[in-house]
């Protein structure tokens, strides 16, 4: 009871703080300084049409590197924690129900289309909304649909681990190349900028986003695989 009262008082305090914040909020009419700079220079300097991409990949590239590391650490943590030792008691495995024939046929039909759409999302990240993270999530969901439709489906851990580590290494390598060949870490101008508005433009951004997409996709798929694996 005391605990509930305490939480109630805390919520009231929080409410008062937020209310005060809301009262003093002023509507902004134009872009802030740094955003204005990005909007003016982004398209001409980096050749990207999507300004969010130019911020995520290049201007704030180090943040993205940190984020990818956090994701990697989380995936590793899940894998290490859910690893099963020999001496632990083994739960009795329940009989799983096989999915219907319709769902299996539908999965065979839809998975290539979904993977292709994921590829579209991360390779067109500099022209349309999306990028490595979203594309990776879409590819991971294609793997997941295979898991759902077939209870015996297994992913190839060697290939997935290889793709994950190789894309991570190449991502950092491209970043370091940027220091030597262009203006700084993760600068995309190590490759020619190309014609504005086509797929192969904006220097290294499609390459970087492909690597991020593969890495995020394999990591999310391996998180799901670890969560799925029952007592085997």
């Amino acid at each position, binding site marked *: 009871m005391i605990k509930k009262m305490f939480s109630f008082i805390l919520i009231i305090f929080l409410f008062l703080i937020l209310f005060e914040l809301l009262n003093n909020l002023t509507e902004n009419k134009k872009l802030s300084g740094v955003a204005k700079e990005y909007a003016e220079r982004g398209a001409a300097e980096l050749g990207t049409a999507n300004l969010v991409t130019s911020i995520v990949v290049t201007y704030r590239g180090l943040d993205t590197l940190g984020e990818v590391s956090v994701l990697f650490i989380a995936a590793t943590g899940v894998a290490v924690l859910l690893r099963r030792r020999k001496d632990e008691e083994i739960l009795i495995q329940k009989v799983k*129900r096989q999915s219907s024939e319709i769902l299996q046929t539908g999965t065979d039909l839809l998975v290539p289309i979904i993977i292709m759409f994921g590829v579209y*999302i991360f390779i067109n990240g500099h022209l*349309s909304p999306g990028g490595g993270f979203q594309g990776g999530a879409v590819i991971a*969901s294609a793997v997941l*649909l295979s898991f759902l439709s077939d*209870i015996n489906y297994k992913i190839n851990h060697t290939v997935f681990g290889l793709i994950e580590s190789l894309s991570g290494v190449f991502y950092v390598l491209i970043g370091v190349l940027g220091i030597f060949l262009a203006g700084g870490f993760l600068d995309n101008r190590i490759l020619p900028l190309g014609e504005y508005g086509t797929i192969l433009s904006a220097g290294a951004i499609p390459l970087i986003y492909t690597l991020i997409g593969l890495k995020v996709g394999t990591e999310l798929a391996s998180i799901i695989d670890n969560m*799925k694996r029952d007592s085997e």
Partner: protein
Amino acid sequence: MDKLPEIILHISTYFVSAGIILATLRLIKGPTMADRAVALDTFTVISISLIVLIACIAGRVIFLDVGMVYAILSFIGVVAVARYIEGGL
């Protein structure tokens, strides 16, 4: 008179929003989790229309990409809930 198509589009947006509210009511009421899953299914399909309507009113073709991602992920979500219910996860 020039504004007629725009006004009709706005009216359709309100119809679609009303549909979402009804699906939400089923989500609240639904006695079992399968009923709530049906509400989720209905709601996601209606939302795709809403997204495309927003894209039309804003006049940006790029919003359609969001609609496609939404369609893919909502389909997989409903299938996952179904597989959970029948115990095949």
